[in-house]
């Protein structure tokens, strides 16, 4: 009797187009434009909050007002927040008066995400932080530019190896490496016996 057997581990290679876009430094100029646009949007949003009134000043009254509005459930029509668990989270933060410090986290988080994306500093991490912010705003019922920025952030996440190549990541990623292939800065200085494996910039896979 034949038994259908599946191989336990098969590593499937990405198609050439995917590798060309997400793993080849030749595509870095494309990601440079994408991340500059997304970064500029975040920088502007963060700067508006940092320099404006009632966001990081006056105990975050603007954020508290936003939270108060979105947790309301109208008698008719749909509430801004569709998921009860997320409404509970916002209500919890409201009840504990977290708006005063959480407004700082959002405002400066947006500012730093914007700068990091523009200069290509840990682009994948910055894109993940940006996508998290977009996701939170979408859950809160605020569409605005969030769907488009979220899409771009996901693409930047997929291209994390090369998206910051035209930027600080060109030097930072080889120095830091990855958890499965630590870079020179993590592994330590060059060994005296002539083995310079610790100082060579590793390929980031």
């Amino acid at each position, binding site marked *: 009797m034949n038994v259908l057997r599946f191989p336990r581990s098969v590593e499937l290679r990405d198609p050439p187009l995917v590798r060309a876009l997400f793993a080849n430094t030749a595509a870095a100029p494309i990601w*440079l*434009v994408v991340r*500059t*646009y997304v*970064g*500029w949007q975040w*920088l*502007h949003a963060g*700067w508006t909050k940092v*320099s404006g009134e009632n966001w990081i000043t006056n105990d975050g009254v603007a954020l508290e007002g936003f939270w108060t509005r979105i947790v309301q459930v109208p008698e008719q029509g749909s509430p801004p927040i569709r998921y009860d668990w997320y409404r509970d989270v916002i209500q919890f933060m409201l009840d504990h008066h977290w708006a005063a410090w959480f407004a700082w986290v959002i405002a400066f988080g947006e500012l730093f995400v*914007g*700068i990091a994306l*523009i*200069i*290509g*500093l840990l682009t994948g991490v910055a894109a993940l932080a940006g996508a998290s912010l977009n996701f939170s705003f979408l859950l809160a019922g605020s569409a605005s530019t969030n769907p488009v920025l979220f899409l771009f952030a996901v693409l930047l996440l997929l291209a994390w190896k090369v998206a910051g190549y*035209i*930027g*600080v990541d*060109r*030097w930072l990623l*080889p120095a830091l490496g990855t958890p499965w292939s630590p870079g*020179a800065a993590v592994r330590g200085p060059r060994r005296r016996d002539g083995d310079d494996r610790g*100082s*060579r*910039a590793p390929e980031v896979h």
Partner: protein
Amino acid sequence: MDGSELSAMVLGIAAWIGVAVFSVIAVANWDPLWGFFPVLAAVVGAWAIGEYVTAGSRLDGGGQ
């Protein structure tokens, strides 16, 4: 990392730090639409500096 690679890295990162400072100045002073283009130009300038300083170095694949 030899001296030329180190100096290339320092110059390249300095260029990008300059872009970061310029971006903050741009967002504080210019319109959100038109301010984007000077920032894009600054980014391209830092790219050119990065290419120039790493040309021929091992970081550019020249020693591999």
